[in-house]
């Protein structure tokens, strides 16, 4: 039961993250939303793996790998956003500028 709550929480986090990812135009906010989606997916997967009582270590390993990958992507994205800011003084993509 508790696990189900956490799993549904993960699903909800994915929804919130997706909403923010699509809605926000500031690029750093998109990076942030990307991380919310990621952790939501991980929680969802972890909760699914814990339903049998004893925790399944395979999802844990996958999630640790996933966290590292997400951090790598975030770091590159943030660096890109900053470089873009220096090059064009904009915090959004050209098509999202008012």
């Amino acid at each position, binding site marked *: 039961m508790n696990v189900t709550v956490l799993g549904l929480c993960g699903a909800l986090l994915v929804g919130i993250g997706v909403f923010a990812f699509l*809605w926000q*135009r500031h690029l750093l906010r*998109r990076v942030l939303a990307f991380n919310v989606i990621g952790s939501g997916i991980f929680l969802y997967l972890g909760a699914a793996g814990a339903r049998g009582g004893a925790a399944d270590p395979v999802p844990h390993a996958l999630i640790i790998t996933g966290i590292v990958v997400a951090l790598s992507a975030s770091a590159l994205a943030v660096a890109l956003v900053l470089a873009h800011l220096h090059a064009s003084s904009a915090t959004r993509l050209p*098509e999202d500028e008012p």
Partner: protein
Amino acid sequence: MIEGPILPLLSLVWPLLLGVVASLPPMQARAISLLPLAPLPALAAAWAGVRGETVVPDLLLGAVLSAGAEGALLFGMTAVLWFAAGIYALVYLRDTRRPAVFAGFWCLTFAGNLGVFVAADVATFYVSFAAVSLAAYALVVADGTDEALRAGRIYLVLAVLGEACLLLGLILGAGAAGSLSLPEVRAALVGEPVAAVLLIVAFGVKVGLVPLHVWLPLAHPAAPTPASAVLSGAIVKAGVIGFILLVPEVPWLVPAGLATAFLGAVLGLTQRHPKAILGYSTVSQMGLIVALLGAGDAGPAAYHAMHHGLAKGALFLSVGLVAAAAGRWRWLALGTVALAAMSVAGVPLTGGALAKAAGKGALEPWAATAVTVSGATTTLILGWFLLCLARQPGKGRPSLLLTVPTLALALAAIVVPWWLWQGWTGLPADYPLHADTVWSSAWPVGLGLAVLALVALRPVSHVPAGDIVIWVERTVRDLRHWFLRTALERSGKVRAPRPRAGRAGVVAEVAERRLLRWGWSGTAMVLAALAIAGTLLG
């Protein structure tokens, strides 16, 4: 790896290799000198007789080369004609703009041209046909003039249309036959009228069946003379072999072909440029051949096509020869022209007379009469050609490399039909000497000459070469303007629109700007995931 005789395969591969050699830096400047070498294996193959089946399982979808009697005959004619034109080109194209490009495409076109006659499977035939059709574009535009580029554009549009029809037709046929073998596809086509019509359009473009003929009178004057010769003599025969190999007996081809024969001749009379006149003459002659094919008689059609290839090749080459000849050389040149022209016109005892005599037997009486009468129109148009050609200025003494191939082709056009007569037609050896045979080929010539005298006194008014294409071009231009105007009025938002792809392009550009926005695309993405899941639930 390769099963069966190797010579036919070598005939195709050798020119391709030469084409590659021509493009190598040390050869580029002298690439034209390679042209006469390209047909050597093909000549050997033709001399030895193209027999047997060559199978190359690793090539394409498993290539099979094998020629029927008609294919072998046209294969030989093609090799001879390209050989003669190649020698002619040594002098004629000495100073061409891009020798390597020209030589490369010459070799590619030639390989394709041979390929259509020996192909026995769908893929090889299509590849060869496409090679000969599309590579010939480079020969048409070789001079790079505006006129050549326009002719090339029209040629390309029709060639691509033909390719598309051919591909569809072949695919439908291969599907119906469940096989790639051409004879089986042909048999299956009887029950596939759509595929048959597609193939008729594809080959009709190539042979210049009215109204698909418009490229011929434009491309021939634009191309360099040796290229015009092979274009008219050999390349259009790819369409003939296509009809022979693939199109089942279709009765309405007889009237369609005869109409083309007469229309071509009449339109030719409206021209002044000698090569344009010859182009229309080819349209006319190919109409006769199509009529023979429509009657279901491939043998005489191939025989006629062989003769026409040699004679028309001589006529085209002679245009360059006359321009290079003055004084008594000019008389020699014009004499050669007259010889070849007489043969095409069917003056008794020439190759042309034999070709007509061989073909009439299979036709219904009215059609046979029409073929006889066409002798008059052919005489008329070729006489007109001679008059126009004689008016062209000439200078100097022609090189032997121009004279010999032209003369040889003209003589071959007369001699070769005699040589092959009995073996090919099965008619008695003296049949062409019978009085009624002679008479039926003599009176139309006489009639034609008489009318020619009238025309020479009062020339027919000039129609631009390509006739209906002028009207088509104008309509397309108007439609395009109309499209763009309406499209622009509708979309005030679009900045600096470029006049390409018309309204569809404007719509696409607006869509692209929407899709570039992550809010839109990302939402679409998530919804697509759910939608796909939805389709999978059912």
